[in-house]
Structure formats: structure tokens, C-alpha cells
């Protein structure tokens, strides 16, 4: 039998769903308020975010907050388009969704690891 990619896709979907349920609303509200919270001293806010991004655990946290929601949402969009009877073959759509999520996740990891001084 051919091996299915579904367990991997579903694990990442599940992890992303749990992450979004536990910190999604708080994260969205935080970034919505960010310009006002940082208004008093923008340089200090930049330094505080820089300190988070410089720490290895901070990098891991930020990567999780971007990568897992990417896999979660693109999995749902992929299946949602199928539910809507999108008149397109399934395989290219899956390649686009899961490949896109993997690519965006790799780009994020690249930025975190190479472009931000530790």
C-alpha cells in the first residue's frame, strides 16, 4: 500500500488548531494593540521584541506561532475548497497548500536563524 501523507498533515493541523485555540485570540488582540502599546517608547518596544527574537527559546516560540497556524489553516483551506467542489484536480491543490506551508515555514526559520543576531 502506498504511504499516505495524511498522518503528518493531520498532526500539524491538530497542533496548529490547539495552539490557535489556546493563544490565537490573545495573540491577535496583542498585535492589534501593538502600535498603541509601543507608542510611548517605540525604540524600547523594538528592543524588547529583539530580545525575544534573539533568544533560542524565543525563536522557537515565534516559529511555532507562525509555522503551526500555517499548516493548520492551509490544511483547512485545502479541504474546504474540496468541500466547495472546486473544479480542479486534487493533487496540484494539495501540493500548493502543503508545499506552500512548508516553504513559508522554511523562510520564517531562515529569517529567524540568519537575519537576527543572537
Amino acid at each position: 500500500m502506498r504511504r499516505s501523507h495524511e498522518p503528518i498533515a493531520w498532526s500539524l493541523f491538530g497542533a496548529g488548531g490547539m495552539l490557535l485555540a489556546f493563544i490565537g485570540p490573545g495573540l491577535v488582540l496583542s498585535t492589534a494593540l501593538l502600535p498603541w502599546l509601543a507608542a510611548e517608547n517605540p525604540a524600547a518596544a523594538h528592543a524588547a521584541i529583539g530580545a525575544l527574537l534573539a533568544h533560542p527559546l524565543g525563536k522557537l516560540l515565534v516559529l511555532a506561532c507562525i509555522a503551526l497556524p500555517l499548516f493548520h489553516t492551509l490544511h483547512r483551506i485545502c479541504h474546504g475548497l474540496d468541500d466547495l467542489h472546486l473544479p480542479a484536480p486534487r493533487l496540484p491543490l494539495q501540493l500548493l497548500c502543503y508545499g506552500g506551508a512548508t516553504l513559508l515555514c522554511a523562510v520564517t526559520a531562515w529569517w529567524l536563524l540568519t537575519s537576527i543576531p543572537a
Partner: protein
Amino acid sequence: MRKPYVQRQRADWWLRNPAYRRYMLREATALPLFLYTLLLMSGLYQFTRGEAAFLAWLELLRSPWLLALHGLALAAALFHAVTWIALVPKILVIDTDRLRVSPGAIKRAHQLGAVVCNIGLLLLVVVLLSNAGGH
């Protein structure tokens, strides 16, 4: 082998039943949340380009379009959180001879955890950034 019978489904199958409409609305929460994740990525990218670029991104967040995206993403995240946690007891079943936890207790524990984590994260961000502004 005989040709298998495939039942035809209309493309608008989900419009007729309120439960199917709620299902599609739940699945649709993925779209604003995906756009929001791209917004987070853009913030990270601007951060890698230096302080001026990041502060310009921060000012961009005040624009009505991005505030609207934040509002939509917040509604989507809340609807996702409620529906996701409602499904947890159907997937996480603890029913053995040694340990038995009722589905209601599993749901309430996850609801409590989600409320604490979400409010905790928001408070952490507010406190850390207001401290950063004070010095």
C-alpha cells in the same frame, strides 16, 4: 470488479442545512487566520530589515484595512477556539479501568486552560511593553 457506485453531491450541499452552514463557517475561519499569519511573517521580515523598517510596519498596523483584518481574525480565532475545544472530548477519550474522565470535565479543563492562556499572553504583552516604555 464492478464499477463502484458514486453518489453525486451538489456543490451547494452545505447551504441547505444549518449544521452544514456552521461547519463551513468553522472551516472558513482558516482564511482570515491564514492572512493574519502572513501579517505576522511580514512583521518578522520588517524586523530583519532594521529598526526603522520595523517601526514603519508598526505604524502600518494602525491603517483601517489592517485593523479590519485584525477584527476579522479575532472573531475567527474566537469562533475557532470555541468550536475546537467543543470537539476535544470527542477525540480525547479517557475511559479505562484505571482512569475515567467524563467528556464534560475534559471540555471544561480545556476551556479554562484556553481562557487562562489567552488572557495570560495578552497581560504579558501589555506588562512587558509598558515596562519597556517606562525606562
